[in-house]
């Protein structure tokens, strides 16, 4: 790749910005239809109870009510990802406070709310399973008594309240312990946190006279929602159309079906369109947050710091249903290994049922929790061995050609450069620049999720280009990145590209806006489409220009040969006269990443595709009296492969760090007795402008073999390292080690007091 680029690699404004700053961009929450009703979900008030009776008589008779829906109206099917354990409404028992039990549709939101409150549910309480310890105790009550009868992908290892146990085994642990001079054992915990998107989940459903249903929703995965709706509604997917008008943030929280099935079922029963939009209380009690975890690590090292063996277990409190749990528990094992060369590994990830809301995927699922434990322990080990934490990492990190934990061969490894540049930028040589002030480092790796993407690319007769993709733009500017790739390949300016996206009827399939894959996969599908388009364009132009097609190229909106040229617009016009216009279908699927299958068990995600590497460094102060943390500087060095749009990538890094600092310092969904105590945005504390430091982003570029122009996934990684970096800096500043997230001022102050014997 030596050619100068015109569009990729440039910090161009995102293509959808004007609509967003003028208020004309339509989000799912804004979407409305004539005659639309408002749906409201009736939710369980018990964490674990038999449903004795659901009485809807009073609700049905209330003014303005047009439909009341219970389990009796819904086909008796279970759905889910790797494990089908969910139902729209429960028939036998409720499993968490906030679980949908019934729903109503009425002419106004107020009428719907009143009717929902009038649905009477009688419960016979059961012993709730309130946390991981209770779920894993011998003889614990089962959240799902009939778990054996559920349909699951065959590789899952399930047992009672454990809905998957993924495992990675490499080498010989006993040999590793024997070779170690020191062995360190630590336990860490992390809290349940919410993605915190500012647009609530919303869906509008409408049925037409032919019996087809259209759902406008802010899902990240329209094709998965289409297929899940097909299961729930017992209809062929082709008769279900899912359209994403616009999304006000997702971060993984809008992957799986939420309010869509209930809106569709209410609309069918009422014979009118129905809209459902969640409240903040519903978001914080009944959405798909990040799992709370418990992590135990045992690591053996030689005196020189080289790691000889690691044994690790992470338990995910996945809530009442598996959700993303089995997959997240799998990914976690690769994150527990960390970006280190460790010959002997025994790593397990458990997804565990409890009577809490169903947890899901949140930006780099399992990443922040695992990394917090791994990177905190690295600093503890460095201190114990009298080694600089940076030096300990440099002695153990993976480098070009090394093996990952499951045997994948790592290429384009920019980790050393990330560590060195982050350390230099933060001024690592002066780790404790003042009283109660210190610096911390953390590093990690992450995947660029696979899955296939298709695009249609059409050249209009005015020379503009329509990019038709099944992927949704969730805010990351990933589709601007894909459009930059398309513009570069076609030799046109970015403003020539218009995007149509995320409509299961009209757009080609896409695996969805998840796993840092959209710009990567859609960008590559665009390149494939341009390869096809070039054949058509060059054939048409060669005939017109009377030249050989081989010598033609695309440049500045023109087809150019030696001395001859014609515009792309003209070729498109001619093609419309003779050949049905210029259009191509481009597709992409990430090639499989080879790994050693003997090393994994019950593992849904055994290797990282086109992995990225990153290092974070933070400089902060601790108030010795209050424990309050003030962040002075924050540096991220991230190996992005190739920066398609540097400003957009900086935006991902700054925003990812902000979210993760919330998880590090202040955010926690607090449960007591199976009930959320802080289900509002006053008590669930997300960072504001005043809480955020400036983030200095360093873009390291070791080009991947597969990504467009060498790009790697960039969206999720910035969310991984902040909790660990902060914990390590707090230890440097205050001399206390906090092993549970969030690292609140209270925990820091108490740790200081404990240490000082106060």
């Amino acid at each position: 790749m030596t050619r100068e680029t015109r569009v990729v690699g440039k910090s161009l404004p995102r293509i959808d910005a004007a609509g967003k700053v003028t208020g004309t961009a339509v989000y799912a929450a804004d979407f409305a239809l004539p005659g639309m009703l408002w749906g409201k979900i009736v939710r369980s008030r018990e964490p674990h109870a038999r449903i004795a009776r659901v009485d809807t008589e009073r609700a049905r008779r209330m003014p303005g009510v047009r439909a009341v829906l219970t389990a009796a109206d819904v086909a008796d099917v279970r759905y889910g990802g790797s494990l089908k354990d969910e139902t729209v409404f429960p028939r036998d028992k409720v499993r968490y406070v906030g679980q949908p039990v019934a729903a109503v549709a009425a002419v106004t939101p107020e009428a719907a709310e009143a009717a929902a409150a009038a649905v009477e549910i009688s419960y016979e309480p059961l012993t709730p399973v309130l946390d991981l310890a209770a779920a894993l105790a011998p003889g614990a009550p089962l959240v799902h008594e009939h778990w054996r009868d559920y349909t699951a992908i065959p590789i899952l290892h399930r047992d009672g309240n454990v809905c998957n146990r993924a495992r990675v085994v490499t080498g010989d642990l006993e040999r590793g312990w024997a070779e170690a001079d020191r062995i360190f054992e630590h336990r860490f915990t992390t809290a349940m946190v919410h993605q915190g998107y500012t647009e609530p989940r919303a869906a509008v459903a409408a049925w037409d006279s032919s019996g087809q249903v259209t759902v406008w929703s802010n899902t990240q995965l329209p094709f998965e929602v289409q297929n899940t709706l097909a299961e729930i509604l017992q209809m062929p997917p082709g008769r279900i159309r899912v359209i994403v008008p616009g999304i006000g943030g997702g971060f993984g929280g809008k992957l799986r079906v939420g309010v869509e099935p209930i809106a569709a079922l209410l609309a069918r029963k009422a014979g009118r369109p129905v809209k459902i939009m969640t409240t903040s209380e519903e978001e914080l009690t009944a959405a798909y947050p990040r799992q709370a975890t418990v992590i135990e690590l045992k690591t053996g090292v030689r005196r020189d710091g080289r790691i000889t063996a690691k044994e690790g277990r992470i338990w995910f409190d996945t809530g009442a249903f598996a959700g993303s749990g089995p997959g997240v528990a799998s990914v976690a094992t690769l994150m527990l290994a960390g970006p280190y060369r460790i010959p002997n590994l025994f790593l397990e990830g458990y997804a565990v049922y409890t009577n809490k809301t169903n947890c899901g995927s949140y930006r780099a699922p399992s990443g922040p929790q695992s990394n917090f434990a791994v990177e905190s322990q690295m600093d503890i080990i460095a201190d114990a061995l009298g080694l600089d934490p940076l030096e300990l990492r440099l002695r153990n990190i993976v480098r070009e050609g090394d093996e990952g934990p499951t045997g994948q061969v790592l290429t384009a490894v920019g980790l050393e450069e990330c560590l060195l540049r982050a350390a230099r930028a933060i001024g690592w040589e002066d780790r404790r620049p003042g009283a109660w002030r210190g610096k911390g480092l953390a590093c990690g790796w992450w995947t660029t999720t696979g899955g296939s993407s298709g695009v249609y690319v059409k050249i209009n007769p005015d020379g503009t280009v329509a990019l038709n993709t099944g992927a949704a733009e969730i805010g990351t500017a990933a589709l601007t990145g894909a459009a930059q790739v398309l513009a570069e390949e076609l030799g046109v300016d970015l403003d020539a590209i218009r995007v149509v996206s995320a409509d299961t009827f009209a757009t080609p399939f896409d695996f969805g806006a998840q796993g840092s894959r959209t710009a990567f996969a859609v960008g590559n599908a665009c390149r494939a489409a341009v390869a096809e388009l070039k054949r058509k364009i060059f054939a048409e132009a060669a005939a017109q220009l009377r030249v050989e097609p081989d010598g033609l190229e695309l440049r500045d909106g023109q087809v150019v040969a030696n001395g001859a040229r014609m515009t792309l617009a003209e070729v498109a016009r001619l093609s419309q006269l003779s050949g049905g216009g210029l259009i191509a279908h481009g597709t992409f699927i990430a090639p499989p990443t080879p790994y050693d299958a003997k090393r994994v068990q019950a593992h849904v995600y055994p290797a990282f595709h086109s992995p990225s590497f990153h290092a974070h460094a933070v400089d902060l102060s601790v108030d010795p009296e209050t424990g309050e943390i003030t962040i002075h500087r924050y540096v991220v060095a991230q190996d992005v492969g190739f920066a398609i749009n540097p400003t957009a990538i900086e935006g991902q890094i700054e925003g990812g760090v902000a979210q993760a600092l919330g998880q590090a310092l202040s955010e926690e969904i607090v449960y007591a007795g199976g009930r959320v105590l802080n289900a509002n945005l006053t008590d669930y504390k997300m960072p504001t402008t005043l809480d955020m430091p400036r983030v200095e982003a360093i873009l390291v570029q070791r080009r991947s073999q597969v990504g467009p122009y060498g790009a790697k996934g960039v969206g999720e990684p910035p969310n991984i390292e902040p909790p660990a970096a902060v914990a390590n800096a707090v230890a440097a500043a205050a001399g206390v080690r906090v092993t549970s997230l969030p690292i609140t001022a209270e925990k820091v102050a108490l740790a200081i007091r404990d240490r000082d014997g106060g």
Partner: protein
Amino acid sequence: MTKIALTLTVNGETYEVLTAPHRTLLDVLRTDLGLTGTKENCLEAECGVCTVLLDGAAVNACILLAAECPGRAITTIEGLGGPDGLHPLQQAFIEHGAVQCGYCIPGMILSATAFLDERPAPTEAEVREALAGNLCRCTGYQKIADAVLAAAGRLADRRP
């Protein structure tokens, strides 16, 4: 419930609205007037996505009754500029990459508008203080602060 007739002045235009008295300005703007540029989220004045200007001051439309607004000048994002004539704040937000999902942006820009009217040459710390009531989950606020500072400079250049 007896409805009341309200005359609202939004973006310089007059609207006659017949509504139940308990409805918020946010609800009336979005549902009755179709002005969905003003966003809806927490409905308890914590997140700021519903920020509009009331006689030039930034307020949360989710906790303001529409019945309190007759005789007041209401400005929503639709009144600030359009594709043919962006406000300097809108332009700066685009150029600085301050927009991601965009759901918080109308409220953010209106808070910034009210703030810059009062404080034309602010420091970054003052910008951050002024926008502390507007949550953004995508950007980490840095490019937003940069955009507001850049727009302040441009607005100052425009003043006589």
